């Protein structure tokens, strides 16, 4: 049987949804959460990713799991946003350029209260507001329709320039995949962001080292990755992408950088948190089957 039993997946998720409310829906900031509380959220997001993709029978768990801490640090500490008012003009923007990590973004948005947690189990179904790759026309809180890789950094520059023209103070965060950096447009954008001196723009690269056909170094070598960004005129910060404290410090540090954009190269593990998915490119674009869902959820208890 390919799909998890309907009832099982449902009960898992509804149990998860009986969580403490972390958001006061009307304010722009999450309640002050400890690192331990954020770790618990990260684990919950991982559980959602497994349940969602398992239920859908397709999707991209590997590159969703690798960026869980990045997204958790942003949505539950760094971003100024209002889940009850997704179009709030002064919100900090999070732009998911690696649109295949949609399950992660949906999990985080649901956890924040942009839409009900139960909605997550409709992932990839006909008429669901949760499309296979992000679609900003149907999902509250999604800034950009992505999935065609390489466009998010450019889009983020446009959002940043508009804020500058309007004298708005919002900051713009864009999450790229490392494999995505094969796309020439990423480097067109890297050049332009430095040229336009957009210092309220932060790119985060989910550097899990793998893409569909295997390791980056075998498919298309990116090294020396940090030096490339430096040469393009960016402030570069490297962190352990699964360490919330390091990530939060990096985001705070980026706020102090003036006159140029910042890239945070987050060293991560593809499939992080699920033993048989870790560093396994098979799970880039393959969902766990029912048995695997069960094992994964056990590991994530």
């Amino acid at each position: 049987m390919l799909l998890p039993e309907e009832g099982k997946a449902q009960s898992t998720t509804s149990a998860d949804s009986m969580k403490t409310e972390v958001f006061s829906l009307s304010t722009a900031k999450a309640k002050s959460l400890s690192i331990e509380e954020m770790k618990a959220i990260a684990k919950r997001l991982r559980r959602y990713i497994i349940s969602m993709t398992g239920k859908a029978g397709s999707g991209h768990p590997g590159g969703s799991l690798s960026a869980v801490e990045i997204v958790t640090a942003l949505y539950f500490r760094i971003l100024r946003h209002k889940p009850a008012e997704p179009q709030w003009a002064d919100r900090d923007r999070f732009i998911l350029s690696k649109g295949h990590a949609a399950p992660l973004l949906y999990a985080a948005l649901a956890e924040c209260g942009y839409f009900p947690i139960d909605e997550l189990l409709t992932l990839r179904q006909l008429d669901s507001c949760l499309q296979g790759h992000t679609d900003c026309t149907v999902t509250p809180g999604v800034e950009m329709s992505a999935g065609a890789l390489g466009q998010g950094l450019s889009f983020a520059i446009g959002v940043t320039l508009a804020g500058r023209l309007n004298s708005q103070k919002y900051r713009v965060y864009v999450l790229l995949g490392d494999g995505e950096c094969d796309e020439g447009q990423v480097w067109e954008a890297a050049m332009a962001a430095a040229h336009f001196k957009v210092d309220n723009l932060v790119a985060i690269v989910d550097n899990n080292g793998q893409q569909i056909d295997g390791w980056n170094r075998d498919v298309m070598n990116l090294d020396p990755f940090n030096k490339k960004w430096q040469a393009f005129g960016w402030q570069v910060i490297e962190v352990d992408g699964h360490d919330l404290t390091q990530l939060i410090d990096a985001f705070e540090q980026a706020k102090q950088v003036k006159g140029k954009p910042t890239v945070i190269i987050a060293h991560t593990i593809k499939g992080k948190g699920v033993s048989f998915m870790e560093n396994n490119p098979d799970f880039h674009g393959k969902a766990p089957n029912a048995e695997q869902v069960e094992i994964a959820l056990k590991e994530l208890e």
Partner: protein
Amino acid sequence: MPKEASTREAYGKTLVELGRENPDIVVLDADLSRSTMTHFFASEFPNRFFDCGIAEQNMVSIAAGLAASGKIPFASTFAVFLPGRCFDQVRMSIAQPGFNVKLVATHGGISIGEDGTSHQAVEDLALIGSLPGFTVIVPADAIETVQAVKVAAANYGPFYIRLCRPKIPLVYNESYRFNLGKAVSMRQGKDATIIAIGLMVAAALEAADNLKQEGIDCSVLNMSTLKPIDKAAIIKAATDTGAIVTAEEHLAHGGLGSEVAQVVARHHSVPMEFVAIKDTYAKSGKPAELLQRYGLTAKDIEQAVRSVVKKKVS
């Protein structure tokens, strides 16, 4: 000879006018601002002008980000690069979300002349017209260009406006009012209808005048809004005249002719002829030489009308 004027100069000057009226108008270019004429805007509003360098994909997605944040971006380069060089960006960054981006491509068609194949956009209308949600306008002269640009600025959603390099004859006077989505009747006749866009409208008028002298009485429609196309006007033309010739500076497939033929086939089938570039690339040459070589003159339209009228009789 009718008076001639440049459509891209009309565009550039209209942008400045719009910029003065609306602070949300911003302009992007890809290192061709002196050719697309966005440099007029750049010198008056340097803070609202973004030269993206020779990086059309980046320009298009930046424009989308600006639009997503409430700006009204006009992005310009040559029609061969926009949408050709950045089709996926136009599709996913602009068309799918329906962002309020105005793509104004100059140097459409083969009338760009001597630069040759690499710079001759003969597929752009097929590409852009294939994208759900885009409004596509091909103005017939500089006066219609001014108005089309203003209409694009005033109406939410993605627009593509295709202009050309050479000065082209004015077919309108200043009292003309462009009506989005409505074909403009330029001549009334009973034997056939010529439906044209861009610089082929002037050629269609010349052809209609010449044909009248040999007793063929033609209607001429300017289909400046290529998408959404004015179905009612096409059906009326088919019903009233019983034969249709389309004329465009574009490949025969995927442009005006294909669109009109779909409407005709579905609603009121009549004989048709297509004045367009056959399935080939053009070469370097003077604009007039090229238009002649590739079958885009008044004479070619006249020949097509004679042929379609014959089919109608038999």
